[in-house]
């Protein structure tokens, strides 16, 4: 973690999204999103199913192509700033029966800094092992990934993002299908990242834990409803605007 010198919340904008519109088969999933994420926040993106939360992350990362709008990371296009960004996809997006080990999956996080063709060596292996140690998965390094529990798989994904040693972390529902202990372990790591001056952006489902876990929040439902500090904008008004009048039902789910 050599980027600690960047002052926390110095008012810099880590991620800037301008007029972003994304559509599947010409049906808009995200509509004219303007969003500024300040550096050093631990931000939740909340919204109902189909609100475009994952789509927003994926289009920031260039995995999906928007039909309009632009994204910048520290004032530069994403392609130039790849090395500053790490991504934790939804656990369900990969085939866990793939013949590979926990350590190998974490090693994949180092591929970006290596670039094409170059192979990972001792330095990358050390970084991967350290990341495994950090998430408490070192004893499982040789385990085939299908033989890990859901929570362990999520930790492996987290370790893979940590090894990228990025400044901005995007995570798509990291708490999905994990037990309470793992959830606490993950959130502690995320809080540590924020302390180190990193920006962490998490697609989140559990509204009840938002005030406890996060300091920044974005309400999203196809359009952006609101974004800002949790203590200022996490209120009934915005929740109703995002989830409709019945949002309390969705909290209780």
């Amino acid at each position, binding site marked *: 973690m050599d980027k600690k010198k960047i002052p926390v919340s110095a008012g810099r904008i880590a991620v800037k999204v301008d007029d972003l519109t994304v559509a599947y*088969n010409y049906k808009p999933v995200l509509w004219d999103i303007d969003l500024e994420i300040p550096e050093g926040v631990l931000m939740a993106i909340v919204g109902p199913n189909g609100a475009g939360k994952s789509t927003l992350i*994926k289009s920031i*990362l*260039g*995995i999906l192509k928007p039909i309009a709008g632009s994204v910048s990371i520290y004032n530069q296009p994403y*392609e130039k700033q*790849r090395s500053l*960004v790490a*991504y934790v*996809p939804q656990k369900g*997006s*990969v*085939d866990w029966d*793939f*013949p*590979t*080990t926990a350590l*190998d*999956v974490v090693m*994949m996080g180092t*591929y*970006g800094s*290596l*670039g*094409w*063709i170059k*192979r*990972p060596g001792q330095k990358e292996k050390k970084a991967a092992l350290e990341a495994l140690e950090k998430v408490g998965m070192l004893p499982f390094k040789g385990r*085939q990934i*299908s033989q890990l*529990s859901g929570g362990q798989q999520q930790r492996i994904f987290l370790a*893979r993002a940590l090894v990228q040693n990025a400044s901005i972390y995007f995570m798509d529902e990291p708490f999905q299908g994990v*037990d309470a202990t793992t959830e606490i372990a993950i959130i502690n790591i995320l809080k540590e990242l924020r302390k180190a001056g990193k920006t962490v952006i998490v697609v989140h489902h559990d509204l009840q834990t938002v005030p406890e876990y996060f300091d920044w929040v974005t309400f999203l439902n196809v359009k952006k409803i609101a974004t800002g500090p949790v203590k200022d904008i996490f209120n009934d008004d915005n929740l109703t605007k995002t989830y409709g009048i019945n949002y309390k039902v969705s909290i209780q789910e």
Partner: protein
Amino acid sequence: MSSAQIEIQLIASVVAIACAIPGTFLVLRKMAMISDAISHSILPGIVIGFFITQDLNSPLLIFLAALTGIITVVLVEYIQKTGLVKEDTAIGLVFPTLFSIGVILIAKNANDVHLDVDAVLLGELAFAPFDRLLIAGADVGPKALWVIGSILIISVILLIAFFKELKVSTFDKGLAASLGFSPAIIHYGLMGVSSITTVGAFDAVGAILVVALMIAPAATAYLLTTNLKHMLIYAICFGVFSAISGYWLAHSLDASIAGSITTMLGLLFLAVYLFAPTKGVIAVMYREKQQRTEVSLLTFLLHLRNHTEERERHVNHLNEHINWQKVRSKTVLDLALKNNMIKFDKNIVSLTEKGNNFTSQAIDYIITNEDSKIEHMKEDFFLFRG
């Protein structure tokens, strides 16, 4: 062995290796059907290439055929992207169309030349040694060996150079994209290699059976390992083994070589499917039986712990109380005795100290929702498994 026999086995083995490499990734990407589609739809490419070059081994022909292979993939993806039909339907629409164009082209224009549907579909390995490559008048070996050998060398170089990219984009497309390894480039690269290999191999095993050489060795290897590199090596070994044993099967039965190779692939897969140590059908059945007995044992021990009254723990009543068949009760009772978990006292069963420890630990794990830990606990307690 005559030199022709050695050459045939050599060609078959090289084809098998060349097919196993892209095949492994096709299986892992769940794209086995795409290789089937490619193998059919390269026919028009081969035919058109043949009209232009009049040579079945010309590089231009291979290039044109590979191009049709890529076109197939693009068309399938295009139709699928409209959202009107699913992927398998799209495959089923594209390749018969392209294939039939090839069939018509042959029927209309190639009746009088050496190019018939059978030759393309089934291949004839036995004739491969007759077609020699002459360089400055000197015989340097069968042409087919040079063609498929060059293809193999290229795919091995590509595999070594892009192994990490192939792995990450196969496992996690999203991550690959965010790291800057365009999944599309890798995807079409793999499709290109698969197409070229298919074309190169059709001389030896025919365009249809090449599917077997791509998919079967990789599918067999998948059952045996949890390591991508090992999977590649196993797939190559299975391919070569089937190629050589298939040749000798054909030799003794006086049957088609390609057919015999594919039969060997099928038999090999069947054997591994049944007997693979962890993923095989028999191993899974055995494990399930073991699990069942051990769960029964735990239930039984819990019952003993919960009931202090002697009536509930009398041997004759246990059957009715837990409602198990005689055989099962006996298995469970035996297992408990073998592991020193219970003791008998005038037909009254009770837990030993060890049985008591085991049961209370197990309950702790069950109520704290950490069932998975019971497996490790068994290692500590069981002298014999169920």
